[in-house]
């Protein structure tokens, strides 16, 4: 059966020599084509620059995406980001696609920092040591607590942690 709709989405994080993180978010499907580029500056992960380009069928709410995206410059990744971004580029009269792009770019930055820890865990052959490593990880990253099935109270990883 042939397809009536196909969407491809890519988000990439590039670590620049100056330590800043350049995120490229791109979407293409039968109707839309969009690109958002954001530069984050560690350690606060402040957004230094943001650009957006929409093409093909641009929804009416996203006609001014290239100007709207400038509203997020100066914002840092942290608690409340979802609400802040919704207020700046999304919401009732905003561009929901832009809101998704910014949040997914921020999520990619977080995963970019998560990757080395996961890679280190893979190099630990002993299961008990590996379990301890996951427990240390959740202790040092409270945002993980109850974030998914692995970190729910009844998970073997959480056993005895009292978090």
């Amino acid at each position, binding site marked *: *059966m042939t*397809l*009536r*709709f*196909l*969407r*491809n*989405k*890519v*988000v*990439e*994080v*590039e*670590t620049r020599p100056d330590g800043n993180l350049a995120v490229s978010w791109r979407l293409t*499907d*039968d*109707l*839309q084509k969009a690109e958002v580029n954001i530069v984050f500056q560690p350690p606060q992960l402040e957004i230094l620059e943001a650009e957006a380009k929409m093409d093909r*069928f641009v*929804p*009416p709410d996203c006609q001014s995406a290239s100007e709207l995206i400038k509203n997020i410059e100066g914002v840092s990744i942290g608690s409340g980001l979802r609400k802040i971004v919704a207020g700046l580029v999304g919401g009732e009269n905003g561009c929901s696609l832009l809101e*998704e792009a910014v949040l997914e770019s921020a999520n*990619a*930055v977080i*995963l*970019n920092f*998560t*990757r080395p820890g*996961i890679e280190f*865990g893979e190099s630990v052959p002993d299961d008990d040591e*590996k379990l301890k490593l*996951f427990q240390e990880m959740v202790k040092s990253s409270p945002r993980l607590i*109850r*974030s*998914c*099935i*692995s970190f*729910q109270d009844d*998970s*073997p*990883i959480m056993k005895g942690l009292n978090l």
Partner: protein
Amino acid sequence: MITFSRSQVIRAEFLDDNTVCFNGIQEDHIYSMEVQIEVRISDGEILTVKGDMKRYTNFVCPQAIPVLQTAVGLSLLEEGWDKKVMREIGRKGCEHFAEVIIECGRCLKKAILSKSLHDALAKDPALDQEKFLLKMSA
């Protein structure tokens, strides 16, 4: 150098006039997930869900596969559906499964629109596509 990358591919097949099947793949440097959901077009209700966890980070992760079934019965057209998916599938199961289902859900209206445009163009190749899409999405 690219230090993290994620790709999502969502495809839609219309099984009949009132059912669309989405297949969603999410591949990144850490995780790899695939879901397939059948959705009733008239009310956006998820009829069936299947999922496969191909790459994950710890031994508890695969326990999230049965949690996917809690998506059955949820409507992708109801207010706050995406938050519900993240709460029920993401937090109680796997966040990355939830992300793929949410992307499939976001594609529902677009897939219907795309099919309508495809059908309309078959009847009238000279159709003003922009005008058609604006009218249909209003």
